């Protein structure tokens, strides 16, 4: 069950979220320049969350699976990039980004199925999930995955159960190179910026921090060696909640509601003003000349 006092946002509710407890923001830092592709984070995620194993697929790379699955919430993507300096192996941790402005939550029609805590964690409550998949349309990162078995959607929880009792997420705990670090958003941005300066000093002038403002920033911040080309890592350049999802949940919803209420009031007004048509050709009662 969600921790009520820490709820910042709750999907599909007409009432304000009940959270009154302010928590320090939490952020996971992913430094792609120090990732060695060992996949300890993947194993730790599977173990801590006790997720059933997935059958791997031979992709011709070291990547475990083509994509995240309902049972696999943390996947190191092995992207190969070739330029004049030769072949670069660009590894990136694919998982829920825990957006400050989550598209999944905006799109969700099931009350309480997606919540956001005051520390920034976006969490799915599968017991409230109705399996419509709208979160998959709302997410700009292609993260939530539908389970045909339970007909519900799953993704990284940021180990909310560990974080809530003061522990690091399992993947961070397992990382052997400190490519993964965990702390407040402020701390992690500081570490990330320092690392970017180091990379620039080493000649990687395009190095940058990936914390996309289009979704209000994310609680998973990534240091990219080729920060000018996030696409090389499979990251969208400027992710936002899709415009059509915003249209649907914004103006279209209000116009639609007004039109439907207007339609009902309209036919009611018509009935009061003009009433029934005459039966079998007779003029209707109350439809006399004096009315007009």
């Amino acid at each position, binding site marked *: 069950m969600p921790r009520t006092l820490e709820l910042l946002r709750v999907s599909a509710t*007409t009432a304000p979220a009940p959270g009154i407890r302010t928590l320090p923001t939490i952020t996971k830092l992913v430094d792609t320049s120090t990732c060695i592709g060992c996949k300890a984070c993947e194993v730790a995620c599977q173990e801590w969350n006790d997720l059933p194993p997935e059958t791997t697929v031979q992709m011709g790379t070291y990547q475990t699976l083509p994509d995240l699955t309902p049972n696999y919430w943390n996947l190191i993507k092995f992207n190969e990039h070739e330029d004049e300096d030769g072949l670069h192996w660009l590894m990136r941790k694919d998982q829920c980004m825990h957006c400050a402005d989550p598209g999944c939550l905006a799109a969700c*029609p099931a009350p309480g199925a997606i919540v956001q805590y005051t520390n920034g964690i976006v969490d799915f409550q599968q017991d409230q999930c*109705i399996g419509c*998949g*709208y979160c998959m*349309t709302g997410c700009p990162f292609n993260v939530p995955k539908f389970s045909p078995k339970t*007909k519900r959607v799953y993704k990284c929880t940021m180990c909310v159960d560990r974080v809530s009792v003061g522990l690091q997420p399992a993947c961070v705990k397992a990382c052997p190179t400190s490519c993964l670090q965990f702390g407040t958003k402020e701390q992690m941005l500081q570490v990330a910026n320092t690392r970017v300066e180091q990379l620039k000093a080493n000649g990687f002038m395009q190095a940058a921090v990936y914390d996309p403002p289009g979704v209000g920033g994310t609680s998973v911040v990534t240091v990219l060696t080729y920060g000018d080309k996030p696409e090389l890592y499979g990251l969208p350049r400027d992710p936002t909640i899709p415009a059509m*999802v915003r249209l649907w949940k914004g103006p279209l919803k209000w116009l639609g509601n007004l039109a439907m209420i207007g339609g009902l009031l309209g036919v009611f007004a018509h009935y009061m003003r*003009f009433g*029934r048509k005459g039966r079998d050709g007779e003029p209707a009662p109350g439809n006399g000349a004096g009315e007009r």
Partner: protein
Amino acid sequence: MTPGRLIVRYAFSERLVHAVAALSYLYLLLTGLAFWTPALYWVAVVLGGGYLSRLLHPWVGLLFAGALVWMFVAWRSDMRTTMEDRAWRKALRHYIRNEDAEVPPAWRFNYGQKLLFWLMVFGGVALLLSGLVLWFVASIPWELRVLRYTATVVHAVAALATIGGFIIHVYMGTAVVPGGLDAVIHGEVTEEWARHHHPLWLAQITGDSSKSSGSVRL
């Protein structure tokens, strides 16, 4: 002809399919509204819960689509716009104000009914296609995600358009036109009813326009 004679307006198969369409549409409307706005989510709870509503909504949608196809095949020739419909459309104001003496005669269906029919046919196609995308959203590749976005908006807009038609259709059939609901359930109307609401159709099926020329204005 004997006054008060009953005429078959809708065959049993027509009434049955219309009822299937009506009931399935009502279910789709109620569960769809529950997913549309949190303020109406309680409707899904009343109908067995959000999970069940989401599970059944697409299947009932297929049922509605099937009924719609049947109605399309059965009624489309009666639903073509005719010369008389142009005159009827010009007199829409009188029809709305129940000044039926000023309304030009209609065939089996008047122009308003035809509009609803085509709204439901085209709206139904849009709802079915977008609904299939929403149903199998997990199978839409990420590269084609624009389909997901488009389907979300198309489904909502098409639903709103048909809801507008549905409100007017149900209101007209149950509250405004006496005998309308009876006709679509039991299938029969009186000759006077037919002469008043659909004189050209009456003349057509009785095979002699002269006998009903009192109300038929050609």
